[in-house]
Structures are given as structure tokens and as C-alpha cells.
């Protein structure tokens, strides 16, 4: 006979951590609250004018928390309650997505290895200050290398619990 014992935790029971998780040489915590915008335009200059901000010009570049994700797409991670103009009537799209994602901070000398456990990019080759959209296993994330050993990770709200625990599992494994 085949015996399948109950185990303690199921996907339904996972809860998003609130307190930082400390591993050896790596720490996972929540980023502080941010304002987030999805910014789109064919012509960056029009958008820059609409929101009165400079935009990075090359995919993967980041300026003051505004990341160039694609040829006509920027993602702004700004101090909480920053409000951008909508640019009504202009050929631009400014959408407030502050609540769509949560930010995690993964930091410490072991952070790169933990992020690499599920992110297929060559992270060591990613320069400080650069950012990109990518995946952690099957979950889409935006990563921003804020410092040599400090990564800001954006993940859509409903995937955050899974990602938190997947990162924690990788931290546990790397001990």
C-alpha cells in the first residue's frame, strides 16, 4: 500500500512574510512603499515633457528610479505618493500601477546566488544601476541592481507570496 502522509504547509497556507529573512550573507526584506508608473510613448521626448522627467534612453538603463524596459516602455519606481501627470490628449500612456506590485530587497554578498537560483540571466554581467524585466522560474519580475550586492525585485502582488518563499528556500539551501 502506498502511504501519503499529510505535510504541514500547502500552497494555500503559505503567507507572505512580513519580517526580513536572514541567510548566510544574504537578507530578504520588503522595500519601502513606492509609487509606480507604467509609462509608454513612441517618442520619449513627448513623454518626458508630459511628466517633466528625464527618461533613460536605452533598454536596461535606469535613471532616478525610472527604468527603460522596452523601446517604448518605462517603469518608474518612485518615492511614495509621487504623482505624475497623465499627459491627457498626448500620444503617451501614463498609468498608475503603484498597487500592482510589491518590492523586495535582496542584499548581501550571497544575494546574486540566491537570485540566480531561479533567474536565468547572467546576473554577474549586469552592471550596477541596470534593471530589466525577466523571470524567476515561471514568475515575471523586474530586477534592478541598486548596488553591487543589493537587488530590488518587483513582483506582481499575487505572486509575491510564492516568490518570497521561493527566495527563502534558496537562501535556506545556500546556508
Amino acid at each position, binding site marked *: 500500500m502506498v502511504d501519503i502522509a499529510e*505535510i504541514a504547509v500547502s500552497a494555500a497556507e503559505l503567507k507572505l512574510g512580513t519580517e526580513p529573512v536572514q541567510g548566510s550573507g544574504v537578507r530578504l526584506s520588503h522595500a519601502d512603499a513606492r509609487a509606480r508608473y507604467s509609462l*509608454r510613448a513612441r517618442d520619449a521626448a513627448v513623454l518626458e515633457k508630459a511628466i517633466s522627467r528625464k527618461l533613460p534612453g536605452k533598454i536596461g538603463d535606469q535613471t532616478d528610479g525610472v527604468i527603460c524596459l522596452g523601446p517604448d516602455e518605462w517603469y518608474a519606481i518612485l518615492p511614495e505618493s509621487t504623482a505624475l501627470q497623465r499627459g491627457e*490628449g498626448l*500620444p503617451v*500612456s501614463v498609468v498608475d500601477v503603484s498597487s*500592482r506590485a510589491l518590492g523586495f530587497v535582496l542584499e548581501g554578498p550571497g544575494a546574486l546566488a540566491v537570485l540566480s*537560483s531561479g533567474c*536565468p540571466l*547572467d546576473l554577474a554581467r549586469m552592471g550596477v544601476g541596470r534593471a530589466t524585466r525577466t523571470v524567476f522560474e515561471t514568475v515575471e519580475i523586474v530586477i534592478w541592481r541598486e548596488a553591487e550586492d543589493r537587488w530590488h525585485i518587483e513582483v506582481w502582488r499575487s505572486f509575491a507570496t*510564492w516568490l518570497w518563499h521561493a527566495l527563502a528556500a534558496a537562501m535556506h539551501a545556500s546556508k
Partner: protein
Amino acid sequence: MSGFRLADGGRIDRRTKRTFSFDGKAQWGYAGDSLASALLAQGQMLFGRSFKYHRPRGILGAGVEEPNALVTVDRGPGRMTPNLRAPSVPVHDGLTATSQNRFPSLKTDLIAVNNVFSAFFPAGFYNKTFMWPRAAWEKVYEPIIRRLAGLGDSPTTRDPDHYDATYAHCETLIVGAGPAGIAAALDAAAGGGRVFLIDEQEEIGGGALSDPAQWAWLAEATAKLAAMDNVTVLSRTTAIGHYHQNFVVAAERLTDHLPVGEAHGPREKLWRIRAGEVVLAMGAIERPLVFEGNDVPGVMLASAARTFALRYGVAVGRKIVVMAVHDSGWRDALALQAAGVPITAIVDLRRDIDPALADAARDARIACYPGYAITSVSGSLAVKGATIALAGVGKGQKLDCDAVLMAGGWTPTVHLWSHAKGSLRWDESWGAFLPDKTHENLRCVGACAGAWDFGSGLSVGLLPAPKPLHESKAFVDFQNDVKARDIGLAVQEGFRSIEHIKRYTTNGMATDQGKTSNLNGLQIASDVLSRPVTEIGLTTFRPPYTPQSFGAMLGHHKEALFQPLRKSGIDDWAQAHGAVYENVAQWRRARFFPQGSEDMDAAVARECRMVRSSVGVFDASTLGKIEVVGPDAAEFLNRMYTNPWKSLEPGRCRYGLLLGEHGFIIDDGVSARLAPDRFHLTTTTGGAARVLGMMEDYLQTEWSDLDVWLTSTTEQWAVIAVQGPRARDVIAPLVEGIDLSPEAFPHMAVREGTICGVETRLFRVSFTGELGFEVNVPAEHGRKVWEAIWAEGEKHGAAAYGTETMHVLRAEKGFIIVGQDTDGTVTPDDAGLGWAVGKKKPDFVGKRSLARPDIVAPGRKQLVGLLTDDAQDVLEEGAQIVADPNQPVPMTMIGHVTSSYYSTTLGRSIAMALVAGGRDRMGETLYIPMPGKTISAKVLAPMFYDAEGSRLNG
């Protein structure tokens, strides 16, 4: 009892004893021993029983090529692993290993009776019999065969271990850390790039581990590599396979070599490595020789005996005969003799032996028999002697021995090369396939490239023997019990391609995947067919290189982390209030909220009553949402959806129907125009990502001239539906900046303002047929606003309701659910949604397909309502509908029930159905044949409640 521990030598730590058990018996070895070496040192020759004939088998090899000595290792509850190779299992204190595939014991295996009758079980025997009587295959023969087949037992309990995984990147990946691999690693590392060096063994060194002369160099090189920052060395790590563009997957064994109490952390780790260049230094595997008795325990590869002696300090016998066709056998014999392993004779099929080797053997007092072949081996549980004959002819002479070593030449390990679709060329002088061309940045070095210094030799199939092939009992594939004669039989029966021969005989299909049998099988087939090896072909190597645990492949994706389960921000509240959930796409949603001992029907009835009589609150956050922004937003939606959008005024909502280009409904939802250039779209929960992807496709590739952009806002907004005659009363105290009066805020309108001090997009929409609002607030405020609404609602006796109640309420109104009332083959007209198709629009996605001949043909299935004649009969969803219930099976089915519920509101059951020509059948009675009874029902329009819509406009 032949093997013994040599007085000195080996890399084992003779100061540290390890105790373990094998088949329940206490055993011991030294730190550094493998299970095989430790048991050989104790004189154990018998390790396993073969798959088919249950013949007694000993050790063949000292590495992963081992086909015979398979054991089950038990590390406690849930931690049993079958089919491990004894030479690759390191001993540790407490190791518990048992032999497999024997009953009741290894020594006395009753199923070995198969061996007596082996003549009746040649290759492919099962195709030729077990056919009569007809039912007996499943009832009698197959169960017996299944029970006799298999190797070890499967685990039967949940595995408590966890597994790790990672991606890694490097400029150079070297697979195999023998001398060639280490040299390649040092060379690559000097260039400064990132270097990975991986090896499957307990420590790096490969062949050098069995050559004490290289140990000093090895220690130096190992230290040098360890000191380099850009070098990662992974031992106990098997490169499983090579995939596209130098993506190499490897599995590292982290804890199985440790005593159970010391094993912490994950059991194995999956390495997914992308490399600029891959260097394969996987070495070569020695080939056995095919002669009568070559499977008696004590017959093994010469290289294995060398490894056991020089690496583990174990002699595999006291009187050893070497059967060679290759110089390497002589070298191994000499090295063994020098190490104190008694070699009594070297038999070599070749007459001309390198004089230097022959002289050295003579000097070592080893008898030499050039031109001879072993024609039989005596003994059953262990070697008792061997008969040799000149050129394999005649009666021959007996040699007293307790072990026989085979040196049949070498097969380069080209598996990963082959995974990468690298081509192979047959090299006659090596008698093996060597790497040729590849389109990857991939190269082979050392023995796997054919660059070895073992000397030269012959490439032979079956050794010459007095018996003809069809009587030979010489084995080719030891684990699967494939004899040389089976290959002969396959050829005789018309199997000429090596793939056919492999599949017919099962040669090379055992758990060693033919590492020692493929080339011998090929050579024998070549000899029988009198055709060169190259015309018969080589079977394709497939990953994995050696068997790897499922656990390693799934990494973190185990149990709670298997897949994300998406929950809304209000989900916690639902859980605290006793919600029963259902999974919808990646989400879980509250299905109903039972109170006390209510079952689903009772809870749903109560929730429905509350919505119809007072108010209900529903978490609709999982609905897909897309913000469409830009000057061309209306034009874009006009092209995507079936209905017109340009005329929609800001502040108003519209139901949108989305087709695939094939003309069938794929999604729907109510969307709002917030501003001339800004729309808030909604999609189904399951369709969100698909719809966004489809819209992006059209926008980027067909209509890239449009100035409009799409942003997913599914997770930006929590959505709280407040539905029922008291809905306005519930939200009124909380809303600011929006005039909620019916005149100012009619049905299908949207307003922006605040609720509970939080910005809101407030929709006046209804999926229930009642006065209703959908409160959109930023997700982080969802729970807070929900609780505020709930508190207000309670004053009106509100019910929280779930998806099941939502389904009933919408069905009463005849609103469809895409995916339930449609199934990917339903057009707007089929679903009764012709009104939602813009007749004047020149084009929209799917329009042209709606004009295809079968789509406009009469008799298509159309959505209708059904009322059962017995009002208490609730039809089963999915039940099939017929016009004539008395016809024989197979019946002509004219449709099926798509939605069916008991409606508390109406005090009877209701159903929706797709029925052929349904709208022409109004008033007709149709039949639903169920097991045991047939239910009759009348066709009507799918609208059961408040047809005029006075309630939702209230």
C-alpha cells in the same frame, strides 16, 4: 571469498572505519570506500541478480557503467532509493543497503528457475506467445510478467528531502575532471574567464585516481584550482545532458554520502549552466568481452580491478586471469601485479603482442597465452576456473582462477557530444565512434576524443568459441540478459537496423543505457550481417547520461512551491469567514460562505436570497483588467471587439465581446471609457494574460501605426461587487465626490471619486440583475475598503457571496460565462449575442470567419434556456440532450446542458443549454437521458428573471 584488502595503497583512509549493512548483515570498510570496494574487500563476489533470468551477478565495473550490482539504499522513512550502483555508492556509517530482484535471498533465488528455462525466453519471446486464450494476457500472463520484471521496489512514502536548483553562467564548462579535464580547466582559467569543472565522482581526478604516480600532480592541480576565484569545481556532480546552445544540466548530490544524522539541507542540487564553450573530458569506458561464462561473479573489467586495487586498496581475487584483446589489459595486469594483486595469466586473442609488454609480463612471472581465447568460465556464484583454447578452437585447457578480468578495448564517452547533435565517425583503429562535427562551441579532449595512451587493440564482437553463435551463452547486455545469440536471432528474424536490434533484444536499454553493451552488440550484428558497423548505425544517446532523481529535476518546485497560488488581497477575510474555495486558472476564489452546518446548496440559496432581497458583497478582484490609453484607444478597441466603441461616451460602460480570428468567442467583459483617450477594460479571470497577449500582438504587428498602449492593471485594483436592492444604501455613506443618484449615475456608468478616503473607480454594473456597483480601489486598500463595506452591509443583513452564488444569479438573468456556456466553438450568434456584434463595422477580429459556410449554415448549436418538467429536477451540467429518448445507442445528441442550478428565487431548477437549431425549438420538449431515468425539459429563451431589467436599472 576471493577478494581481500591489500596491505597498503589506495586513497582510502585506513584510520577511519565505516560500518554499514548489506542485506541485513553488518559490514565495514574505510572512509573513501565505495559499497562495492568495501564488500569486495570482505570477499563478497555476489551482488545482484539479473533482470530476466535471475542469474547470479558480481561486479563488472568500478563506476557508473556497472550493470549488475544494483542495490537499494534505505536512509529512513521516505528515504529509500532503489537501483543504485554499488561502485558509485560511497560508504558511510549507518549505510543500509540491500540487494534486489531476488526471492527470498541473493544466494538462493527461487526465480532463478527462469535461467533453467531460458531457452524458452529468447529475445522477443513475448511477441510470440501469451495470446491464448484471449483474455489471459491481462488476467494471467501480464500480471506475472510485471511482477517478475522491474528491479528494486519503488518508494512508497513521501520523500521528506528537499532539492535545490540554480542557474549558472561561465565562459568555459569542462565536464569530467580527469587529467585532460583538469588540464583544460587550468588552461581556461588562466584566461581569466569563469570556469566550471564538474565531475561525477566523489573527488576529482578521474583516471588519475587509479594511478598513484599521478597523485602528486593531482593534489597540486586540485589546490591550484581551489585557489582560483574564477574556477568552480563541483564533484559528485553529473552532467545529465547537453541542450541547445551550450545549456548543460547537471545534478549535484549533496547529502547522500553523509550519515543520515549529518545530512542537512537539500539532498541534491540542479545546475542549469549556460556556457560559452563546453569542453567534454568524459573519458572512455572499457568494453567487456563476449565469451561463455562472462557473467559469472568474479568476471569484471580489467580497469575496474585496477581501480579497486589502486584507488581502494582491494584485490578482487587471489588467482586472476586476464582476458585481453587490448594492450591496456596488459598494463593493468602489470600494475595490479605490482600492487600485490595476484595475476596468474594473461590470455590475449592477438598473436603478436607488443614485445615490451610480453617481456614485462614474463618478468612479473605472469603466464602468457597469445592467440588464445577463454571459451568458458566455470562456477555459478563465483568463478572457479576458466577454459582457454588457441583461437577459441577445440577443447582447450583449464586455468585455475577465482577472477577473470576483461580488457576488450575502450569506448569513448561521447554521450553529451551526441546530445548536442554532434556527428560521430567510426574509427577503425580505435574500434569506436569518435566525435566529428558539431554546430555548438563544443569540443572533446582526452580519451573521449580518442586521444588516449592505453595502447592499441582489436575490436571484436563474440570471442572465437567452439560453439556456434546460436548456442552461445555469452552475454552482451548483463542487466537485461541479452546474449550474443539473441542478437543473432534478431538478425535472423529480419531486424537489421541497430535500432531494431536494440528494441527487439533490449540490448543497451537497461539502466546503464548500454555503456558496456552497445558497441559489442553492434560488432556482433556487424559480424552476423557481414556488413560494416557504419552501415548498421549507432543508436542515439539521449539525456540523462546516468539516471537522475526526479527530485533533482524539480528543484524548489516541490509541494507548497510547486506552482504559485494567486490570492486576492481580500482572500484572508474570506478564509476567516469560513469560505470554501475553488481554483480558477491560477487563482483561488471563495466559492461560498457556509454558516453553521450549511452545505453548498443551503449556503448558496441563502446568499442568493440576500442579494435578491437586500444586498450581497462579492470579491471580484481576480477579473482581468487592462488600461488602454492613447489617442487611438477607441479605434483600437473598435477593431478588437465585435461591438462599436467609438461612440461610447466618457463615463459610460459597455459589454465587450472578443472573438479569435477564427470567429469563436474567447473572452468578454464590461469596459469603461474614463476619458476620450483612456479605457478600463475587464476580462475573464482566466483570460487576462491571453487577452493582453493577443491585443499586444495585433497592436504591435498589424496596427503598429496606432498611438495606443496597453497596461495590465489586474493587480492594481481590488474589485468589490456590491449587489442588491440595498447596494446604494451600503456604499453611500462611504463614497465621496460621486453623486450616486440613479439620474446622475445610471446603470452601465463609471465615476471616479473616493471611498473610505481612497481613490476609486466606481462602476455601476450588474452581473446579478440587481442594482449593483463594482468598487475598484488600489489593491493595497482592498481589504480595508471591503471591511468598511461589510460593516455597512451588515446593517442591511448583507451576505458575503462566492462564485457559486454569482453563477446562479447570472444564470437567472441568462448572462453567459465564457468557457462554461461557450466552449471555443461558439459564435456570438450561437450564444445569442448577435446584438453585441456591430453590424455596420467593416471589420473586427474574427468578423471574416463569421461568414464561412459552416458558420452561416442552419442547424448550429444555439444557447437556449431549459426548464425541466419536474421543477425539482436539477439537470447535471454536461448532460446530453436528445430529441427522441427512445432511440438506441449510439444516440443522436443535439446538444448539452452548459449551466444548471436550483434557483431559490424562482423556487425551481433552471438550465442553459447549447442545442442544435435551439432558437427554432422554443416550446419544444427535449430529453436528457440519464442513467436510470430520462428527464424531459422545455426549451425557452435563456432569461428566467426580470426580463425587463427593471431591477438593475433601479
